[in-house]
């Protein structure tokens, strides 16, 4: 059961941004997971001290391989180890999959109502949304998906190449917010997400999208409040805050 801890082995590590990387784990007995679920990861020091953190899973579906993506928090206790020290072959204690609320399930069949989906991510908040985007692509879903991704600068984009590939689908669109530095040729000016930006880049409330918002607490609160102002019912806006600034 999910309350039990098990040992996973690091099979791959790849840099994602200057302060983060993705970590692939092989977890024997992993039952697969829904898009948007997380796992708990536990580190134990030689003296027995333990630190437990929750990490969203960037992958979805069957199989015993899961991918995480971890950003280094400057005063973090666990993330600096995962980003700076962890190497392929290391073992980590995990339990999961966890959480059945912040998840996207593909429609059961073609006759199921295909409600549009709006993903809104800030920084590493893209991780559970990436699982949803990958699940959407894996079943060749025609459900309209739209992602609004807020980053400080272009180099802070997680999964940049794969997102560009996903955006080639006619059923998946990406809009960007650059809070500090925009890429060359970008038409807008850098700045935090605004009501106007949300109004133009988010599936309108009239289409009743399922909305998933993930990011730092301040980002999530701002976005969720603005979405309600724009007419989205609070019950249609699911949020996952991961603390921080």
């Amino acid at each position, binding site marked *: 059961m999910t309350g039990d801890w098990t040992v996973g082995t690091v099979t791959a590590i790849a840099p994602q941004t200057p302060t983060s990387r993705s970590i692939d784990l092989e977890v024997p007995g992993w039952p697969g997971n829904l898009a948007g679920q997380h*796992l*708990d990861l536990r580190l134990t020091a030689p003296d027995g001290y333990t630190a437990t953190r929750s990490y969203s899973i960037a992958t979805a579906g069957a199989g015993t391989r899961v991918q995480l993506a971890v950003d280094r928090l400057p005063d973090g206790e666990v993330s600096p180890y995962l980003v700076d020290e962890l190497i392929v072959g290391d073992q980590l204690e995990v*339990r999961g999959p*966890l*959480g059945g609320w912040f998840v996207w399930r593909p429609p059961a069949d073609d006759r199921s109502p295909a409600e549009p989906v709006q993903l809104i991510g800030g920084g590493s908040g893209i991780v559970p949304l990436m699982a949803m985007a990958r699940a959407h692509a894996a079943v060749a879903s025609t459900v309209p998906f739209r992602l609004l991704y807020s980053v400080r600068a272009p180099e802070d984009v997680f999964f940049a190449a794969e997102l560009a590939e996903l955006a080639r689908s006619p059923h998946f669109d990406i809009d960007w917010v650059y809070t500090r530095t925009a890429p060359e040729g970008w038409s807008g000016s850098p700045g935090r997400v605004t009501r106007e930006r949300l109004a133009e880049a988010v599936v309108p409330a009239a289409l009743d999208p399922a909305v998933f918002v993930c990011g730092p607490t301040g980002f999530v609160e701002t976005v969720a409040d603005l979405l309600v102002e724009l007419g989205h019912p609070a019950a249609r806006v699911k*949020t*996952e805050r991961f*603390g921080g600034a």
Partner: protein
Amino acid sequence: MTSHVDGNALAGPLSELFSADMTCASCRCASCGDVADLAEAMVYQKPNTYIVRCHRCGAMLLTIIQGSHRTRLELSGVAALSVPRPGT
């Protein structure tokens, strides 16, 4: 103490105590009567402690304290929990 996270973070600690996914349980606040999924509550984390507050009124709903050998669950502000039955 930094900012809070969502009730989603309770999935792991509560999986040690309940067989159902309690983040999908709806929870009625004893203070204001608001009913919301536990995933929507505000969670303040300290080492080995989760303090869970109503997302509407901020009142304490419950506290999880993880000791070395025992877990203590205080349900001081929960009027009711409604949990999906397995397979539904």
